[in-house]
Structures are given as structure tokens and as C-alpha cells.
């Protein structure tokens, strides 16, 4: 397993509230291999983003995190402040959903990029500036020198997301976590950003964890896919297998809903019922409340993860008979 650069084992994140707590992630586990692009898909509120934040030790208080997250051989959960500072931006860089809000409106792009670069690389201000220009060229932004002097509000959403990608790669991280980086953008821009991330992954051997609820993006970008439901991974496999031979009833429903770029959100409404209340998640298989194949067993016993063939794993009592 030495090729696994990010490994998550039995991750649990809960947010205490009065009386009951919200169990955002309930025993999630998967590994990301060196140099691959892994898609993490699921509906809003299934725990994807919290999982991503946990990888950087960024679960907001009062969230409590249990389990294990190993990045490049080092444990993240419970890591020291110094170790976390090295990890954040250095080993793992993250780009966020809304590029318009992810950059500080009171500082220039250049200032923010060089601040980050100088934390992770032993360069002075002008050296950091050169690296920032290099990174902006890498993400194919025209006039990088001009862009450095701009404030975020002077750039478009697509440009800002490119800046974010540039900031992410400027410190040469091992892993890039992209948390729905295209959701807030126009359809045409979405495609450009996805192509950019794919090219970067190929040319620089970057490992990418790509979080989305848009199956179309997954098909065009990812090597492997993990499907998340109610805080757990229900199915995982190469994107080819998952699109053509999904085993879990949830994945099947998900894939059935027209896989086309930029039409993710509305299509998911096709699945009957609602995402379960994470304060009191259903017993047994969490999906049984919406599953048309559910048995008595599914309501009581939580299914184990089984391997179907090779890479393809699934957590469903009826996976084998339904395939």
C-alpha cells in the first residue's frame, strides 16, 4: 500500500448540539493513490466537504474528529500545530467552492499568493513574486504581472478560480483537494477549470481528490470514484466500472440521472425521499429509507464493505444478487 498517499480510516466527525449531535461523517474510509484523480461524489450534506476539511485538520469547532487520516505517512488527526502548518498548503492544498469569497477582498492577489508561498518556501518577497508569476502562467492566466496587482473584486469568477489553482500548485503540494470548485461558475468556465485540473494532474503528477455532486464532471475527469452517502462510502471503484456496472442501488440511481456536465444538482432530485437527518441517522443501511430493494435485514444490520472484483468495493447486502 505504499502507493497510497492519502488514507482515511474509520473517520468520524460529529458536531455536538443540545441533546443529540449531528454525525456528519460516520466511519468513512478510502485511500487515494499517488498521481490519481479520485472523485468523491454524493448529495449535499452527505459529509463530503467535512471529510475534505478533516484532511487538513480544518473541521470547524465544535466538531469532534475521530479515526485516522494519514497523509504521506503522517497522521493528521491530533497532529501538532507545527505539523499542521506544514501540511496545510505544503503537502495538501485545497481549492474551494466559491472563488469569489475564498480570497480576501482587502488584499491584492499578489500579496495573498506571496504570503502563502513565503510560508512554505525559503524565498524572499521578490522570489515569492517570481514563483507566483510562474504559477499564474501555469494556470494559463494572461498577464500574470497585472493579475498580481489586482484585488479579488476586479477579477471574474473563472479568473479567481484559476488564481486559487495557481495558489494551490505554487507550493508544489502532493495532493490537491478540490471541493466542488466548479459549482459556482458558469458552464463554459466549469469545463475550462476541469480541463486545467486534469492537465495539471497529468503534467505534474498531482494527486487530486475531487469532490462534486456532478456525475458529469466525474466521468470526464476521474480515474476512480468513491460514492458517499450519509457519512459513509457506499461504493468505490474505477469510474469506468461505476458508470457502467454500478452495484449499489444508490450509485445506480445517481448514475441514472443524466450524466451531463453542469446539470448535477437538479438531477439528483430524481431519487425519491430525502437525505436522512444526520442527528438520527437510520439504523442498518442508511439508504434503506429510499431504496426500492430494501429488506428487513437492511433496516437492522449495517452492511459490510465487500470486494466485488479488483478495485470495486461496495457496501450493500444485496449487491451480489442485484448486479
Amino acid at each position: 500500500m505504499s502507493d497510497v498517499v492519502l488514507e482515511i480510516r474509520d473517520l468520524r466527525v460529529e458536531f455536538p448540539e443540545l441533546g443529540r449531535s449531528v454525525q456528519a461523517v460516520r466511519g468513512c474510509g478510502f485511500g487515494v493513490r499517488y498521481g490519481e484523480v479520485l472523485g468523491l461524489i454524493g448529495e449535499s450534506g452527505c459529509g463530503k466537504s467535512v471529510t475534505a476539511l478533516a484532511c487538513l485538520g480544518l473541521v470547524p469547532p465544535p466538531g469532534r474528529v475521530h479515526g485516522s487520516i494519514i497523509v504521506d505517512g503522517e497522521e493528521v488527526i491530533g497532529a501538532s500545530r507545527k505539523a499542521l502548518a506544514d501540511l496545510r498548503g505544503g503537502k495538501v492544498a485545497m481549492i474551494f467552492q466559491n472563488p469569489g469569497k475564498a480570497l480576501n477582498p482587502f488584499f491584492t492577489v499578489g500579496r495573498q499568493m506571496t504570503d502563502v508561498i513565503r510560508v512554505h518556501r525559503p524565498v524572499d518577497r521578490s522570489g515569492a513574486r517570481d514563483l507566483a508569476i510562474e504559477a499564474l502562467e501555469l494556470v494559463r492566466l494572461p498577464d500574470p504581472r497585472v493579475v498580481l496587482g489586482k484585488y479579488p473584486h476586479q477579477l471574474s469568477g473563472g479568473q479567481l478560480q484559476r488564481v486559487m489553482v495557481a495558489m494551490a500548485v505554487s507550493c508544489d503540494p502532493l495532493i490537491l483537494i478540490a471541493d466542488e470548485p466548479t459549482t459556482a461558475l458558469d458552464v463554459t468556465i466549469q469545463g475550462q477549470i476541469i480541463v486545467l485540473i486534469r492537465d495539471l494532474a497529468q503534467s505534474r503528477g498531482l494527486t487530486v481528490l475531487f469532490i462534486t455532486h456532478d456525475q458529469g464532471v466525474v466521468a470526464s475527469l476521474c480515474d476512480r470514484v468513491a460514492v458517499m452517502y450519509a457519512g459513509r462510502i457506499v461504493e468505490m471503484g474505477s469510474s469506468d466500472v461505476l458508470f457502467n456496472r454500478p452495484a449499489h442501488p444508490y450509485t445506480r440511481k445517481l448514475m441514472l440521472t443524466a450524466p451531463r456536465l453542469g446539470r448535477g444538482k437538479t438531477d439528483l432530485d430524481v431519487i425519491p425521499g430525502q437525505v436522512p437527518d444526520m442527528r438520527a441517522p437510520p439504523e442498518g443501511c442508511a439508504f434503506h429509507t429510499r431504496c426500492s430493494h430494501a429488506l428487513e435485514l437492511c433496516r437492522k444490520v449495517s452492511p459490510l464493505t465487500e470486494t466485488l472484483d479488483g478495485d470495486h468495493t461496495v457496501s450493500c447486502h444485496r449487491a451480489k444478487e442485484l448486479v
Partner: protein
Amino acid sequence: MYRYVTQRILLLILTLIGVVTITFVLGRVLPGSPVELMIGYRPNQEQIEAARKALGLDLPLYIQYLHFLGDAIRGDFGVSLHTKQPVITDIAIRSTATLELTVLAVIAVVLIGVPIGVISAVRSNTLVDHATRSISIAGVALPVFMVGILLQMLFYGDLGWLPLQGRIGSLVLLDHPFEIVTGFYLIDTVLAGSWTAFSSAASHIVLPATALTLSTLPLVTRTTRNMMMEVLQEDYVRTAIAYGLPVRHVHYRYALKATLIPLMTIVGLTFGVLLGGSVVVEFVFDWPGLGGYVVRSITRSDFPGTIGVTLFLATIYLSINLVVDLLYFVVDPRLSSP
């Protein structure tokens, strides 16, 4: 930018005209008209007529209004009935006392309240935070005059460290006269090089300034904390931390700059609260400023005095808020470089 500035200034002028109008209405339309206040006890018909003519009250209302407006613009608020001097002269003499007090308080409030609010937000839900918030909640419930009285009881009555009231010791003033240059005693005494006079002025201003500061401190601390909390929730703060920037750097540079704009608004508003509060504090400490003057004017039915001070303080307050509005340009790049 020019458009914004002219817009702001136009708005200020409009508001000022509104302010003048309100005071005009207060003076002429509501009961207790200035005539009887002016000529006093049991006038005869001729006296009333003469007074009405002298005050221009025989003219149509809109002419009266225009006269009033014109006078106000020229700073002519009439003659005070109890000092027998032009109100503007009275204001000129007393305003520096009020301004010295409020400016000192505003500086203290900002220097103390803002850091406490920021720390409280950064360490939210720790002991520091709970303590500041509890004190803030309690502090808001204490009336200004009680703060002043409690200070007098403690520092004059019990400890005898500081004088009870006044602006400077009268004997000190006799022995160490100094030239009034700025009108701020703390500055003028230093300019005159008189240490005795300075220390007397300083010891006199401590209590009233503290009372004013304490009465607005909870407000500033609390709003600063809430604004900072809001900023700390912003995506860009999370981004900065996700990229490994030192948390201290993120809080005190990235986040604080974002808090600066709402903070300036708060400082502007605080100035207003302090100007209002100074009326009470000056009364408690017998401070020779506009507050005491306006109270005396009211209790002696001296309407020109009241109106003059009200207009003057409202103008100062509005001007400060205009300055705050213009300062946005310096701080917010979204305005200065669109």
C-alpha cells in the same frame, strides 16, 4: 470617487437642512412659543407685539423658516436668555471643553474596546470571552450618571485621589495662568510649560473621561466582537488557514483589516453616543462644556441656547460620520479601485 464624495456631501447638507427644519418646528409650532419665554412674566399686549416683531414672528411661516435657515447657516442662533450673550459666543467658549472630553473618551474607548473585542472573538467561548461578555452585558445596564457618581464616591470620597468636579483647580488657574490656544487644557497647559496647571487639568479630566469611556465601552467591545466573529466565519479566513498561514497572522492582519470598515462606522456612532452622554457626564462633574450649558438653558427656558447647542452638536456628529464615510476609500479597495 468624486461622485461618491459629492453625493455624501450633498446628503450631509440635505440632512443638515432637515435637522434645522426639525429644530425650527420644535421652536415655532409646538406649544411654549419663544415669545413668552423671551419677554418673561405677564407681558402686556404691546410688549407681545413688539417682541413678535423683533423675533420676526409677524411674518408668514415660510419667511420665518427661511430667516431661521439663513441665521443657522451663518451660525447665528440668537442671544442666550440667561447669559445675555450671542449663543454662538457661548458655544465657542464651551465647545472645546466638551470636545476635549469626548475626544479623549473616544480615543480611550477605541484603544481599550477594540482589542478586547478582537481578543474576545478570536478566543470565543474561552474564559476571557465569557468574562468580557458578562462585563459588557452588565455594563450596558448601568446608567451614565451612576457610573459618574460611583467614580466620584470611590476616587474622591473614599480614596481622595482625584477632585470631585470642575475642569481645573481655581487656585491653580490664578497662580498659573496660561494662554488658551487650542482650548484643550491638556494641550494648552503643556504649551504654556506649566506642569502644575497640566497636572491639575489632567487630574480633573480623568473621572469624567473615565465615566464616558466606561459607559460606551460595552457597546464598542460587543460590536467589535460580533463583527470580528462574522469575519472569522468568512471563506477567505478559512482559505488563509488552509494554506498554512500562521493563525496569528490570519487573525490580526487578514481579519482585522476586514473589520476596519464596520469598526470606523462604530467609532462614528460612538462619537454620537459620547456627545449625548457628555450632557449627563458634564452635569455630574460640573464640567464647563456644552452639556451643562444646554441643561441650564432648558431649565431656564432659554430656547436659543438649547437650539444652538443642539444644531452645533448635530453638525459635529454629521461631519464625523462624513469623515468616516470618506475614510472607507482609504481602506476598502472595492471602492478605491473598482
